[in-house]
């Protein structure tokens, strides 16, 4: 008889200017309740200035079984990192 509320993924922006980061997940009946729950569960110690909620079923995730073909080909391609040239001293903040 007991029905579980759907699961929601919670993203919190901790400071203006920073990106929203995944904080965790919780249960709620709908998006409004998810926002309120997120406020109470994840921002009660001043952690955030903005919250996004996404119902977990709406997230399409990569399959760990496919990690080989998805990610391993990148391992031996260090040249994709922009580290093979010298930065002039005049260029700051890189």
């Amino acid at each position, binding site marked *: 008889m007991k029905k579980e509320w759907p699961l929601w993924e919670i993203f919190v922006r901790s400071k203006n200017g920073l990106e929203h980061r995944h904080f965790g997940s*919780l*249960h*709620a009946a709908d998006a409004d*309740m998810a926002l*309120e*729950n997120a406020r*109470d*569960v994840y921002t*009660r110690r001043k952690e955030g200035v903005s919250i996004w909620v996404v119902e977990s079923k709406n997230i399409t995730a990569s399959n760990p079984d496919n990690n080989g073909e998805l990610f391993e080909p990148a391992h031996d391609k260090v040249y994709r990192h922009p580290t093979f040239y010298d930065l002039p001293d005049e260029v700051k903040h890189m």
Partner: protein
Amino acid sequence: MNNILYKYILGIADNCLILGQRLGELCGHGPSLETDIACTNISLDLFGQVRSYYQYASQIQGEGKSEDDIAMLRPEREYLNVLLVEQPNTDFAYVMTRQFLFDMYHYLFLQKLQESNDNTLEAIAKKSIKEVSYHLRFSSDWIKRLGDGTQESHDRIQLAVNDLWVYTDELFHQTEDDKVMVSNGVGVDTSVLKDNYYNSVSEVLISATIEVPESKYFQKGGKLGIHTEHLGFLLSDMQYMQRAYPNMSW
């Protein structure tokens, strides 16, 4: 005059203390992890407000008593909270209905307390009203959700509203001391809040498909220290440590 102000502060603060204690009883027992945390957050907000009030009250009283003495060491008859806040956590519908009926009052009250001549009360009101706005939003949302939810949740909210309605009128009663505080610009004239309160409460109830009770019979007594049978049990629980181990601290 100081004694009147002291009692006036307790009249405000005791509501927060007793309701905070009731909500605290839900810690670990909320219907879900999320609502459990929400209710205890509200409880902590209220305790935070209580501390400010009692610290001020202790200063006014000038007998060297601490905020903890005021909170924990009074006999039942000296607690001046309204009867509404001491009503038990019968079920989640009662918890939310009690919260909603109090939050609406609390919000309107703090709005006016911000205009108090007393700088400390003004400052506490300004800080607290942000918290209470959220409490009101939270409890109103739950009233609408459950009232306009399933037949079962609707019936439970209607029952809780019918049962707790008798305690709403007392929110607007003024003791002789309250009237003195109103006349010198420190206190809030709660009689002017009443129409707004019932209109706003009715608006939420109607949108929640809940019938607004028409009862003309109301309970009173809390503001004079005459409580329902529930407060004694609550206090014996709350005061246990200080009574069993006087002056103990964590």
